[in-house]
């Protein structure tokens, strides 16, 4: 039996009837939507329930919630300074959503929301959209100075388009990084799992050989847990860096 390692990324409607129609397009309730709802509900429930007792000496759950709060708060503070803390709810939600999506995707048989470019691109566009809005609100038209490097005017004709394109690549590089890492990791897991199944089915001495990819899967699984966290962290820290640029123009030079 041949297994397709990409099959796990297929989006399937869970209810055969479209839930609603938007401008003539049928909208289905898919496994993707289900997982996103689970992630959102589970993370908000966990975080609110964990800090509910408000104990001085925290329980394990409360400690996890408080540590994640401090982690993100420190990250924003070091990347954007004092006035970036306004955006704590946004960055924290983003971080927790990506982190929980990655971790829920690690559960065998579930679905990885962040392995869909549609999701990561939407999140990245949200970030860059916010950066643009914040930049214009804070600096007005002066925000456009972000695209004007220090150079003589005849070079600016060339440099401004370069800077604009460089800015426009942000949503793409931000989303592709998260999406590709999750896609690659889960594909690798599925490929090695396929080895185990086909070697095991071959029988005889191959059953023993099947142990090698099985052990490898365990190792890759651990690595993937690290990647799941790291990518959520990278997504959040880049959000902070971009917000910092919108808040303090050209300070990074």
């Amino acid at each position: 039996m041949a297994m397709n390692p990409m099959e796990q990324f297929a989006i399937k409607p869970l209810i055969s009837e479209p839930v609603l129609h938007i401008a003539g397009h049928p909208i289905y309730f898919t496994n993707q939507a289900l997982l996103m709802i689970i992630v959102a509900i589970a993370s908000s429930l966990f975080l609110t329930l964990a800090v509910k007792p408000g104990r001085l000496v925290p329980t394990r759950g409360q400690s996890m919630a408080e540590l994640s709060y401090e982690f993100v708060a420190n990250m924003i503070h070091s990347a954007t300074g004092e006035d970036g803390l306004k955006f704590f709810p946004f960055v924290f939600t983003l971080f927790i959503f990506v982190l929980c999506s990655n971790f829920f995707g690690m559960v065998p048989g579930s679905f990885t929301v962040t392995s869909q470019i549609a999701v990561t691109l939407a999140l990245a566009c949200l970030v860059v959209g916010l950066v643009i809005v914040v930049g214009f609100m804070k600096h007005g038209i002066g925000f456009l100075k972000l695209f004007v490097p220090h150079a003589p005017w005849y070079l600016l004709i060339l440099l401004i388009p370069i800077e604009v394109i460089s800015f426009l690549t942000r949503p793409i590089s931000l989303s592709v990084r998260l999406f590709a890492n999750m896609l690659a990791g889960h594909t690798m897991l599925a490929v090695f799992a396929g080895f185990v199944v086909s070697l095991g089915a071959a029988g005889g001495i191959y059953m023993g050989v099947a142990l090698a990819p099985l052990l490898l899967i365990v190792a890759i699984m651990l690595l993937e847990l690290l990647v799941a966290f790291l990518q959520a962290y990278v997504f959040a820290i880049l959000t902070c860096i971009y917000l910092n640029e919108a808040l303090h123009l050209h300070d990074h030079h």
Partner: protein
Amino acid sequence: MTAPDPDRLNDLGKRLDELQTRQAASVKRAPPSQSGIAFRFTTELVAALVVGGGLGWGIDWLFGHFGFHTRPVFLVLFFVVGIAAGIRNVMRAATEINAEIAAKSASKPEEK
């Protein structure tokens, strides 16, 4: 349950703070792995090419819509600008990674 002893709590708090600053210095911003750096550079470069090319293609399409046949001109132009933007991105990423590695090797708690 008895009320917690304030001295012990303060002591615990101090020890926790110490541990956290020590850990923050070592854990924060581990320099990215070789493959991470390679992946970062690739995405930065390719993303700029895609955006540049896409933008040029879009402008051509728009002009074509209004009856000006500029078809390959803006595509080529913006593709070249996209290459330049990609190289700019990679250089910026390299500067950031260098700064991270420098901060790591100096290994002092980061204060910005």
